[in-house]
């Protein structure tokens, strides 16, 4: 140890710069968790509102517990298993160790989505009930290779004679293992454990496809719930970054202090005790949450079970798509509990459905509903159980994908249009040029394009005067040229949900946006306007459906009926910003000044002659997807 502690000034500067680099973004996140405005990038005053929102949100707190529990379990199990295997492998034949190493590389190098899909299919084949167990197995699977990658180099630099010497001196193999090998490779084990913990803590894609039944981790919330701007994820991150050192302090610092005062040897048992205490607290907290509920609630629950057969409803819908109190009101009113899961795209939902996951109510978009009807995934609704169908606005009755409303009940509807900064873009020019403003080089380098082949080809088809459902090769080729010219002359930035925050901050002048997102942008930045080109646009609708494999169809009908009530529809539409299917709510929202009367993005037009809805065409979509990659990648 004589070499230790002798860094010169150069070393200190390196350490200082390193910490600055690592903590600059973290500091940024912490500052913005106290931001009063909704923006993640512009500060609008100090506030604790995101912390309040986070602590009030039970799914968030639950997700924190699951994340920590899974990360701790996966780390402990994979560290032990990985270390043992690595040691065994170092004494095994070269062929075996080469094979294991190659196989271990697979989860490290495959894109998460590939690992995720492979496990999704695998668990479906096994008909495993998805949730905590399957997610934990998946995490252990991808964590072990990281542990082995960290331990193996340390083993290789280990002198083999050491072990032989120990055994010659009468050590059993087990003693040689625990007293000689493990202490020597300890740094490797520790860094392996740290990396495993990180990987487990930060994983989204694999967790998403291997979990189910309402078991979420923080990453799933970040990616699906906070789809639209939601600074409570900053608050959550701040808590994580502050809590972990405290937890580590208990496990790490205490032993060091004890060690000092009590000479030696006490560190390890205490370490274990501390870990056990942490695990016990977590387990108790989760058990406590599960068992929570007063006597009155339990009685209502009993009634619900008698009436519907079960008191649990599984709802699967896009992230950030519910009014603030809708779910809790439904739960108290009917004495049931709702498990909410979110998806990021219709295709994500379809993938899970294909794998056999079961939900009671789904809320996908028009073309996807068409696909689900054709694929025989849905059950016809019993309209006698949904008297509130009478509340539907005329504009959402008899839509193409399900003309008689046999399978679906509209939930939201909207359009796609252009949000623009009217200080920098003349509204007259915007109205004159329509979609072709995306070819107007006066605005080059100042536009955001929604990164999706579906929406991009829609604008191109409309700009050229075609139907957006065309499958005519010549028209597709022309639309591709239109997009290519846009890409090569306008230098657009391709975005998805981050466009909301960027336009609120006015970073660029023009953006292609869904009407509900536009409503939010216009609400937060008064320089912004919304325009639906006369050449036509996509009018879409998301609707509630009940899949065939729903476990609780009776309660599902009750839920659909509830969502059509004035209170629920009002709460949904006011919070989310999309047009309501409820006639009364729609009328009120679009005429009252304190609501959305002055927000031109709220109400989709229902008289646009060129407007269309998407039809499902899988082959066409695959084709467009390839063209779209070409548009973006070819330069």
């Amino acid at each position: 140890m004589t070499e230790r502690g002798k860094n010169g000034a150069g070393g200190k500067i390196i350490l200082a710069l390193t910490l600055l680099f690592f903590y600059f973004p973290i500091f940024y996140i912490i500052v913005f968790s106290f931001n009063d405005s909704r923006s993640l990038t512009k500060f609008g005053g100090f506030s604790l509102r995101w912390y309040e929102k986070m602590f009030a949100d039970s799914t968030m707190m639950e997700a924190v517990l699951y994340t920590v529990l899974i990360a701790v379990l996966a780390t402990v199990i994979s560290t032990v298993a990985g270390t043992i295997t690595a040691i065994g492998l170092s004494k095994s034949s070269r062929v075996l160790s080469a094979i294991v190493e190659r196989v271990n590389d697979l989860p490290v190098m495959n894109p998460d989505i590939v690992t995720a899909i492979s496990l999704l299919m695998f668990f479906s084949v096994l008909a495993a009930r998805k949730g905590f167990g399957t997610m934990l197995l998946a995490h252990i699977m991808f964590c072990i290779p990281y542990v082995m990658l960290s331990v193996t180099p340390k083993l290789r630099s280990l002198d083999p004679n050491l072990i032989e010497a120990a055994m010659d001196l009468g050590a059993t193999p087990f003693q040689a293992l625990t007293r000689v090998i493990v202490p020597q490779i300890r740094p490797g084990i520790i860094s392996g454990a740290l990396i495993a913990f990180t990987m487990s803590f930060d994983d989204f894609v694999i967790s998403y496809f291997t979990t189910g039944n309402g078991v979420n981790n923080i990453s799933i919330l970040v990616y699906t719930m906070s789809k639209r701007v939601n600074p409570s994820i900053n608050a959550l991150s701040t808590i994580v970054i502050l809590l972990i050192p405290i937890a580590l302090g208990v496990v790490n610092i205490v032993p060091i202090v004890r060690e000092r005062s009590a000479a030696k040897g006490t560190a390890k048992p205490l370490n274990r005790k501390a870990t056990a205490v942490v695990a016990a607290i977590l387990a108790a907290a989760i058990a406590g949450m599960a068992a929570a509920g007063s006597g009155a609630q339990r009685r209502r629950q009993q009634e619900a079970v008698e009436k519907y057969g079960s008191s649990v409803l599984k709802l699967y819908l896009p992230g950030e798509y519910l009014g603030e109190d809708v779910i809790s009101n439904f739960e108290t009113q009917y004495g049931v509990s709702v498990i909410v899961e979110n998806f990021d795209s219709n295709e994500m939902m379809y993938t899970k459905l294909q794998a056999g996951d079961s939900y009671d109510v789904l809320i996908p978009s028009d073309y996807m509903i068409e696909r689900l009807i054709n694929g025989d995934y849905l059950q016809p609704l019993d309209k006698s159980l949904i008297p509130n169908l009478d509340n539907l606005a005329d504009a959402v009755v008899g839509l193409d994908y399900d003309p008689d409303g046999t399978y679906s009940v509209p939930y939201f509807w909207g359009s796609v249009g252009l949000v623009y900064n009217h200080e920098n873009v003349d509204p007259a020019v915007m109205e004159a040029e329509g979609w072709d403003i995306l070819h107007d080089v006066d605005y080059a380098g100042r536009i955001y394009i929604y990164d999706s082949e579906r929406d991009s080809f829609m604008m191109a088809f409309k700009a050229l005067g075609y139907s957006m459902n065309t499958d005519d090769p010549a028209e597709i080729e022309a639309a591709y040229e239109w997009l290519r010219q846009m890409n090569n002359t306008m230098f657009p930035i391709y975005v998805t949900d981050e466009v909301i925050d960027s336009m609120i901050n006015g970073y660029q002048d023009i953006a292609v946006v869904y009407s509900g997102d536009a409503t939010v942008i216009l609400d937060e930045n008064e320089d912004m306007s919304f325009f639906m080109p006369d050449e036509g646009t996509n009018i879409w609708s998301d609707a509630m459906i009940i899949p065939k494999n729903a476990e609780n169809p009776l309660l599902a009908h009750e839920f659909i009926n509830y969502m059509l009530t004035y209170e629920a529809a009002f709460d949904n539409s006011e919070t989310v910003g999309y047009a309501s299917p409820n006639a009364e709510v729609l009328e009120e929202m679009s005429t009252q000044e304190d609501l959305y009367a002055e927000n031109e993005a709220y109400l989709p037009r229902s008289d646009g002659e060129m407007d269309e809805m998407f039809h499902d065409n899988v082959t066409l979509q695959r084709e467009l997807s390839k063209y779209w990659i070409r548009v973006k990648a070819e330069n």
Partner: protein
Amino acid sequence: MKQFRSMTYPYVLWIAAMIVLPMLLIVLYAFTESGNDVLTFRFTLENFARFVTDSVFLAVLWRSLYIALITTVICVLLGYPIAYVIAQLGERANTIMILLITMPTWVNMLVRTYAWMGILQDEGVLNTFLGFFGVGPVPMIHTSFAVILGMVYNFIPFMILQIHTSLDKMDKNLLNAAADLGADKAHAFLRVTLPLSLPGVISGITLVFLPAVSSFFIPKLLGGGQYVLVGNVIESQFLTSGDWNFGSAISMIMAVIIMISMYFTRKADVSVASGGKE
């Protein structure tokens, strides 16, 4: 040491079940036509042909390997001195520094990347700061600089950890011996420390390069979607166009290319390591 060999067997069974079997499903997709939900498998090589014959996809793959390579090189060049300096610290300072470097990775990657987006904007913190000196605004967001910065930020902790591990607890007697034999510091470093730490560097390269090739959130958010990488293409095959067959084929091609390059990297490592001993 035959007693230890049997410790490998449970894991061999485990990877057979949890990695190999699920991966076989992906291989099956890669070699078949779409519409396999009905369990009628039609064998085809079309998915591979489509990739290899289309220059755009090859360009995308090439760009991904290139960006991952640059990221890896920067991570080694920056990570090695950082790990070295940390390894020189006292034991407790050492542990604390390693924890300090790992902790930011426990904040969700998307959240961290969002923070970088804010920092790098034309109106962002960094440009405001530069503005005090009359510089800028320097365009940073949506450039290759931003993409590489984001990648390095995300992956360098793993490189530092791996190199640090191999430097930590290194037998200091070797260095003393080198010094006794008349080697100066630079010589001792080049001849003793560096070769002994190479396995750690190789592990670090594996941990940075492999995931960097297929990363896609960072290029998407910081590159403004113009940096289409192979990870984006695979992701969109599975989640947008629903073409699992093509997506599986691309990921197989990528896996084979990476495996070949890793084979040579590790071979270099083995020859250096054994060269050092003999």
